[in-house]
């Protein structure tokens, strides 16, 4: 272990914040990864409750079915790293005001489900908060083909991308690939906050 590097990075992460839009397969797993890494503050936004079918990939437990994802994820993070400051907003993102909860975070993670909301959210963040880095994901469904995934960078947008994946409407969503994409997003957020690991 490089103690100096560890100290420097812990300090920087402790001072940093990430906002996550959507707490499904991408958002719940990305939040847990960032909490374990030692992020200082998380802003978590979702309106939904946990269903049994979510447990194939989302970071929740059987005894949390029926609970709000915001509250359950906050509980789960506290069991891992109680020092993370967490702001939760139980609300649906509405076109025209999607950016408001993310004004005061260092990095935004898009972790929404439909292509329509993904595009709407990315466009609003890029146009209304032009200096804000945003990490998004496209092509999470299916299994295998891990090495088709790559990072696309378009200005402030960092996209975890598999252009050959099918839509989740006509495919399956399972833990390994969703987890890879979620952790890829969290890893990009760390890279944006800390700078490239040289």
């Amino acid at each position, binding site marked *: 272990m490089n103690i100096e590097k560890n100290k420097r990075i812990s300090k920087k992460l402790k001072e940093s914040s990430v906002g996550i839009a*959507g707490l499904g397969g*991408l958002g719940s797993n990305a939040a847990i990864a960032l909490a374990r890494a030692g992020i200082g503050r998380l802003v978590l936004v979702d309106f939904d409750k946990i269903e049994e079918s979510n447990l194939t990939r989302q970071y929740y437990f059987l005894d949390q079915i029926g609970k709000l994802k915001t509250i359950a994820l906050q509980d789960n993070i506290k069991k891992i790293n109680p020092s993370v400051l967490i702001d939760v907003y139980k609300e649906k993102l509405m076109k025209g005001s999607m950016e408001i909860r993310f004004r005061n975070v260092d990095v935004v993670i898009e972790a929404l489900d439909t292509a329509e909301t*993904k595009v709407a959210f990315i466009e609003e963040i890029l146009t209304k908060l032009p200096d804000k880095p945003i990490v998004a994901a496209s092509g*999470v469904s299916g299994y295998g083909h891990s090495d088709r995934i790559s990072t696309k960078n378009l200005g402030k*947008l960092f996209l975890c991308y598999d252009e050959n994946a*099918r*839509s989740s*409407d006509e495919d399956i969503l399972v833990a390994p690939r969703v987890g890879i994409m979620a952790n890829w997003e969290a890893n990009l957020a760390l890279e944006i906050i800390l700078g490239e690991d040289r």
Partner: protein
Amino acid sequence: MSIEVNTRKVEWVKNETVKELLKRMKYSFPLVVVKINDEIIPRSNFSEVYVPNNSKVSVIHMISGG
């Protein structure tokens, strides 16, 4: 007289809008993010913005799942 679309070199067409370019490239995905040079083009402007000569165009499509 050419432009680069997702690293592919293609012919530049005068007065061609983003919408027309997407059609010419057969990018039929309904939901895309388009960047010309360093600028993100909002979808609402696809039929108004012309693609300039020598520009570098990135087209990324969003797929449901999260």
